[in-house]
């Protein structure tokens, strides 16, 4: 009888103990759902982290030889910047200092330092960004703004960071065991285009001194579907799109996306965005993160940071081909992000994505010197004072007979009154 009486409490005790035991195991082990979510977040983080070093890499390599002559270096079969970056990854033992009392003349002297290599950014970046490009190598350095990296070719104990806007020079003492490898990279199969540095309104500019030839390229391209972006960016949108001339507009409560059917440009307005950071490093990282979340796919592989505008707080990324920026028919670059106010951000991007290079079958094109470009514009009545940077780039031209092919034609682009204009179009010397 006693045993029979004991069965029920015993079973109850066992059941309680089992439930305690199982609860403990589940608590101790990280929850399965969290695990799955985490791995998918990691995936999108991975793509953005993977492409960030190339997006924020310098875009131009200038060599000052031992006589002081300057050349832009290009190589059609390897990316010089990414090869040099690989060598820079092993730099070590950093010591950082700011050079005091750098006059404009000193700064000019640095820019034309004999026997050196200069890696140029199209606009200001920070040491924090450079550190991310170099696998967090420079993490411990103070965070300063700069736009040029100077690597002396006769000194393996230091490099310099130069900032054009403030005319500041920073010296980083370091151990560079790969100087010879860097010298190899810039001498093998490299094309040299003679340039010189001149100062306009105390701002250094690079001028191509002689006429030279540039290759032409052709690419097959794809136009991303509007639906893809609507589903991705406005998942809650139920209302039918509105059509207005060439534009189709999709809305939900906080977001709006408009597609221009004619030039395949999308404008996406997000009124629920996170506030932008006022710190440049954080702004650059955050804006690239936002842009990689748009879902531009293949486009992320070849875009580079092109311009940051403090006044409008906008940032532009452009596609690059063999070291030179591509200027589309719209003036906004491949992707532009603009902060409208505290909570609104506007993105402008192209639906056309360059896919596969194909033989262009076209001869290299003869380009005139930078000076000639400016002279010709002035002769046509353009105001010298309003002419800013003169940049060599590629104009993308859709081939009429086929809707798959884009030709990339080397062209001069001139910043006139703050806006980029196409030299060929400006002089009506059209293709």
């Amino acid at each position: 009888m006693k045993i029979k009486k004991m069965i029920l409490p015993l079973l109850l005790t066992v059941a309680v103990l089992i439930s305690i035991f199982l609860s403990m195991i589940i608590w101790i082990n990280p929850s399965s759902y969290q695990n799955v979510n985490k791995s998918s977040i990691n995936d999108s983080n991975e793509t953005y982290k993977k492409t960030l070093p190339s997006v924020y890499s310098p875009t131009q390599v200038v060599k000052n030889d031992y006589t002081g002559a300057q050349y832009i270096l290009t190589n059609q079969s390897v990316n010089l910047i990414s090869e040099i970056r690989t060598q820079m990854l092993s730099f070590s033992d950093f010591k950082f200092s700011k050079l005091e009392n750098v006059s404009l003349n000193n700064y000019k002297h640095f820019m034309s330092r004999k026997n050196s290599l200069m890696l140029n950014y199209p606009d200001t970046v920070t040491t924090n960004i450079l550190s991310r490009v170099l696998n967090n190598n420079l993490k411990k350095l103070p965070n300063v703004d700069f736009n040029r990296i100077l690597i002396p070719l006769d000194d393996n104990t230091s490099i310099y960071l130069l900032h054009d806007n403030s005319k500041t020079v920073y010296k980083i003492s370091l151990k560079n065991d790969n100087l010879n490898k860097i010298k190899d990279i810039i001498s093998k199969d490299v094309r040299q285009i003679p340039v010189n540095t001149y100062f306009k309104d105390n701002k250094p500019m690079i001028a191509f001194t002689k006429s030279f030839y540039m290759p032409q390229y052709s690419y097959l391209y794809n136009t991303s579907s509007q639906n893809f972006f609507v589903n991705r960016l406005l998942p809650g949108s139920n209302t039918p799109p509105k059509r207005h001339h060439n534009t189709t507009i999709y809305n939900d409560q906080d977001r709006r996306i408009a597609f221009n059917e004619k030039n395949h440009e999308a404008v996406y307005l997000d009124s629920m965005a996170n506030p932008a950071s006022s710190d440049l490093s954080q702004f650059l990282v955050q804006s690239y993160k936002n842009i990689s979340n748009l879902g531009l796919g293949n486009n992320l592989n070849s875009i580079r940071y092109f311009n940051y505008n403090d006044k409008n707080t906008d940032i532009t990324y452009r596609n690059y081909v063999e070291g030179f920026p591509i200027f589309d028919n719209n003036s906004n670059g491949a992707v532009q992000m603009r902060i409208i106010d505290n909570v609104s951000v506007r993105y402008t991007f192209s639906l056309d994505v360059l896919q596969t290079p194909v033989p262009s079958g076209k001869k290299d094109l003869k380009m005139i010197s930078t000076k000639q470009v400016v002279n010709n514009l002035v002769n046509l009545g353009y105001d010298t004072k309003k002419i800013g940077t003169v940049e060599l780039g590629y104009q993308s031209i859709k081939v009429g007979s086929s809707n798959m092919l884009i030709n990339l034609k080397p062209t001069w682009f001139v910043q006139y009154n703050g806006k980029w204009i196409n030299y060929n179009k400006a002089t009506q010397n059209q293709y």
Partner: protein
Amino acid sequence: MDFKRIQLIFLIVFIMIDIFLFNMFNENRNLQTESVSQQSNSNEVLKQMQNDQISVAFTPSDKPLDGYYLAATPDNSLKNDAKNLQNQSARFSNGVLRSTIKLKWGKDSINKIMKNRFYIAHGNQYEYAKDLSNSNTIVYLQKNDNGTFYSNIYGQIRFNISSDGLVLGYTQSYLSNIKVLREKAPIISASKALYNLYQYNEIPNNSKIEWEQMYYTKLLQDNQVYIPTWVIAFTTGDSSNVQIKRINAFTGSMLNSSNTKDAINSFATN
């Protein structure tokens, strides 16, 4: 009596809680193994394939590599070269040189005659492809500094071998104007390519992966663009018929153009 009833109710409730917790625990364990299996290192790939009775005759490498977009055009210069070739009667048509050997060479001497331009034009630009060769046919593929080309017709030499091991003749095609269209870019590893092909369900159960090579193959039929491709060959069941599949080494996606079929045909017919 009441106390007993309360105990009983508690027992039932706790048993239900236990069942619920056990289910949760079990689900947790399954999901964890799933997330681990998402890793695509070569060991994991091989293990998963083994479960489907797919065997791999080699260990695919995890090493990441680089590749180019290349352009190359079929070349007719072999027409002129045909006139200067010795010890054979050669004729050229439709981009292919067909030659019948007069003095029969042993197949062991092919390597030597490849180096002699009076026997084989541009012979030093071709490389022996062991995987594509068999007792009747010995295949050489055209090669340059950037890689080896594997196209349905162009850029290869195929020697016909008699049953007693003599070279009877050969066909040759040649690619020229090989140009780099775009700077070097990273490509996926051999093991990732094999894993992708497996995930695309392109490898039937009970297959044997015979070989995997990185060759430059044609991206599209109507233009001359070659891209780095992982070419994977397998046999299924008892059949000796080799199937060949291609994975785009830049994107990891499957290439299933007619080009593959042609490649298989030219492989099977010789």
